[in-house]
């Protein structure tokens, strides 16, 4: 059952969103920027050797750990650097107050503002990836550098997609699609106020959470990845009791 403080927070947050904000335009802008970036990356990739494809799984693991570190140490910890503190304020003080494990869903497209990153964050992320890609391109081969860019930018969009799926109404796809259903339960548990600062920091695939012991589940890696909505393996010694996605969607969507 949603609490009065969350209802009040949602009302206040919505009153501060500029009237012209349109979630569909936000999404379209991001997708267009991503498509342009991928068009450029792919233009530069030619005749990939077998060994160069190893870049894909390594970059995938690297971005999974990067996502875990950024979420745990910048989005959930106050820091003095102004640019990084914005991440904490937008995430811990806005996103996590707007969505709790009592009510995890968007009311309409204007609520997407509190979940999707601003388009300029994608630009910053690409700029941050470029020096690493340039280094890899110089040390190994240009293909390795461009493949790194493809996977890093691709994981940014996987993050946005998976996170978006965690905040939509219950439906057949999010309940049954492998990985999406796992992340949806994983992320609902993360939105418990007593767990959010320490538990379930991955927002794509819970690999780093399994690796670093910050998952709310007590099971192996494959079990983590394909857990779905299963709650049998939830740890008993957590600070709070994780909720099931169904419990965060008990009233008709759009009520609050």
């Amino acid at each position, binding site marked *: 059952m949603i609490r009065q403080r969350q209802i009040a927070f949602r009302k206040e*947050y919505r009153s*501060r969103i500029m009237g012209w904000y349109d979630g569909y335009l936000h999404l379209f802008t991001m997708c267009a920027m991503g498509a342009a970036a991928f068009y450029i990356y792919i233009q530069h990739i030619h005749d990939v050797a077998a060994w160069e494809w190893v870049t894909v799984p390594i970059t995938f693991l690297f971005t999974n750990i990067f996502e875990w570190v950024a979420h745990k140490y910048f989005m959930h*910890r106050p820091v*003095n650097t102004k640019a990084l503190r914005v991440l904490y304020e937008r995430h811990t*003080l806005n996103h*996590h*107050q707007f969505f709790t494990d009592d009510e995890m869903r968007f009311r309409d497209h204007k609520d997407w503002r509190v979940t999707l990153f601003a388009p300029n964050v994608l630009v910053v992320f690409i700029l941050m990836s470029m020096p690493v890609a340039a280094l890899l391109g110089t040390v190994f081969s240009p293909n390795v550098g461009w493949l790194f860019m493809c996977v890093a930018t691709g994981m940014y969009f996987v993050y946005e997609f998976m996170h978006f799926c965690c905040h939509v109404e219950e439906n057949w796809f999010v309940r049954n699609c492998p990985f999406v259903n796992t992340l949806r339960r994983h992320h609902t548990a993360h939105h418990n106020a007593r767990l959010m600062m*320490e538990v379930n920091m991955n927002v794509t695939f819970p690999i780093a959470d399994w690796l670093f012991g910050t998952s709310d589940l007590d099971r192996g890696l494959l079990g983590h990845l394909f857990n779905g909505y299963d709650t049998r393996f939830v740890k008993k010694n957590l*600070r709070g009791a994780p909720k099931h996605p169904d419990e965060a969607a008990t009233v008709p969507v759009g009520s609050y």
Partner: protein
Amino acid sequence: MTVYEGQRTIDGLVVTADGKPLDEHYEVKRFSKCGFEWAYEGLAPQQLALAILYDHLHDQERAIRLSEPFMKEVIANLDNDWTIAGERIDEFLQTSRQG
């Protein structure tokens, strides 16, 4: 007894003692450069533990010594919004072996 309250608001964290802003008490000890936080074990929660204990005890040495166990037992387990009454602190002090 003093009542301590904390809230995560859209404009930032608010921590009060009987309705007035609670000082970080950096002059006693500085664990964190970023003020208070709670619901996990770390430096900002320990700064909050220290500030509450010092405000309650007016004893620098004891507040510093107890700040870590108080952070782990009480501060790390708080909700988004919380209230800690003086009685809860006394209860902690009575059960704490380091008191």
